[in-house]
């Protein structure tokens, strides 16, 4: 991604919120579909799954969010926001038609080139499914370019699974394997029950010619890594996305610095091989 010297990197693009939807049953996550106010900005905006943007509320502040939509979905620029701090709380008060700012796309992307002609294993947990959604849509858009696609996605309850209509559509496809799981049995749930690492162990995907992408809460990552290792995955085959605190998003303010990397500039996507060479400051 070529840095642009002509545009002030701190100036957000003006955006309009097209649609706001409650993503999960406890209403802690809302999904925003955004549109550029200026068509020139829209045309210049090119991104890859895995990249993020700073959503910008003038008078409140900015926060980074992974892009949840794929470039293969024209006219759609989607973010899902979990209410956690000041900016996210203010975002949750917005409605369709409201104005918002956007800076990006920022950071690196999932290694799509590396996945070409290989199998892809996607493991997600809870809220960390946003950029994975973008990735899956991109993979399916060029389905013939990739081998087997396996997705394991878990949440505490069925109502906390994000993007339900996408999940159902993927579930019914024959050219990919979509496994949804919840932590504990739940009335009316007929899918898998069990924590993501356990389901992964049962599923036992082959490591051969496979790239694994793992995004989820730290506790899930911690217990998933040993399972992948037992299955024979090497650190170079496994990728994840970090969520450090950020401000500028362009490698200057120093906040997301880990070792000689800046998560906003060199990440957020790192292979486990790269991460194991970095201090565990995330």
């Amino acid at each position, binding site marked *: 991604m070529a840095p642009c010297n002509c545009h002030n990197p*701190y100036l957000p693009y003006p955006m309009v919120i097209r649609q706001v939807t409650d993503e999960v049953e406890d209403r802690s996550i809302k999904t925003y579909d955004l549109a550029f106010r200026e068509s020139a900005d829209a045309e210049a905006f090119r991104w890859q799954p895995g990249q993020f943007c700073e959503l910008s509320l*003038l008078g409140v*502040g900015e926060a980074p969010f992974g892009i949840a939509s794929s470039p293969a979905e024209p006219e759609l620029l989607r973010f899902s926001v979990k209410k956690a701090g000041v900016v996210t709380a203010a975002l949750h008060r917005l409605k369709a038609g409201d104005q918002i700012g956007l800076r990006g796309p920022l950071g690196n992307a999932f290694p799509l080139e590396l996945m070409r002609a290989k199998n892809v294993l996607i493991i997600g947990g809870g809220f960390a499914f946003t950029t994975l959604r973008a990735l899956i849509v991109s993979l399916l858009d060029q389905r013939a370019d990739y081998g087997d696609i396996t997705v394991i996605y878990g949440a505490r309850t069925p109502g906390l699974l994000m993007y339900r209509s996408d999940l159902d559509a993927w579930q019914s496809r024959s050219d990919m394997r979509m496994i949804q799981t919840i932590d504990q049995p739940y009335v009316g749930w007929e899918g898998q029950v069990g924590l993501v690492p356990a389901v992964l162990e049962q599923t036992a995907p082959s490591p051969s010619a496979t790239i694994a992408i793992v995004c989820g809460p730290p506790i899930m990552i911690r217990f998933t890594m040993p399972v992948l290792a037992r299955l024979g995955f090497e650190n170079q085959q496994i990728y994840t996305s970090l969520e*450090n605190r950020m401000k500028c998003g*362009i*490698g*200057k303010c*120093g906040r997301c610095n880990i070792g000689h990397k800046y998560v906003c500039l060199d990440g957020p996507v790192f292979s486990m091989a790269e991460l194991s060479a970095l201090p565990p400051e995330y």
Partner: protein
Amino acid sequence: MPEAYHLPSGQYDAWLATLRRHGRLIAPVMREGEYRFDVLADDELPMLGRGLTRRSPKWVFFPQHEAMLRFRRQADDYASAEVAQPNNTPQVLLGVAPCDAASLPMLDRIFMDNYHDPYYAARRRNTLVIALACARPTSTCFCHALGGGPADAAGADLLLTVIDGGYLLETITPAGQSAAAGWGLDPADGDHREQATRAHAVAVEKLKPIESLAGIEAKLEGLFNHPLWREAAEKCIACGTCTYNCPECHCFDIRDLPLADGGERVRGWDACMYAQFTVHASGHNPRPDQGARWRQRIMHKFSYLPANIGLYGCVGCGRCITSCPVRLDIRQVLDAVRRALPEEASRGTV
């Protein structure tokens, strides 16, 4: 075009007037009992040659706070933002110590590599930097451990050296050359140059012998989990004065300032010494204690920056030592790094 000019004392006032015509003049003065850089009043004379200012002049390029965007509020909606233009007035930064000037090449890489920071870049472009060779190194100076020296002109456009009855003015960059060419000064002769060389040597003599820090990045490799960080940081009160006064520290925060009819997006200095610096919205803090923060300060300056841009994040000015309210001496921490055995890191404290 000569590379060195002679500035006799008799022409000094006229030369200052020339500088003021070039742009606003920023130089060391006394303010509220503090020796510091400030914008000079029209009739005010710079106070050169009194050693290091208490705070570094980095604010000239990277102010402690600045508006990046301005926005207006219409009814309940914020209308779109406009860019706050940095002050584009040409300016002359006079009397910078060589160590402070040496911080500029590194800040340039941070702010102008990759994404171009327009605020820093505008000030940098508009500022002529005139360094003054250091004649009074103190016991807390360690520029020479980092490859610098009292007459090292890196980062400056021009270098002044006090000689008998005036100054020798050497041009360093093309910008310095073209500025000096218009000042109507006589070229320096061999005697002037020799006096300056002698003055430089005298200053070097005054520096305390010190072990070079070159290569310390290799030593830091295996020390991430070493107990030395927590030991070094125990007396630290996390005030961040070291980072504020440091000419190289450049971490910042961006905050929105809401006002009745709109507001501003402001950036201001921040510091790895503060606990809040890395706290996630979830409350998780990847650097949970002051030892981890001190490690970041040392690692960033002496390991990560050399790896990324080939420059240390420290020029050895010693301000963090003299300004520390508990006298935590970075040189002692670096000595501990030198003495540390990587195998002790397995004890893991941080």
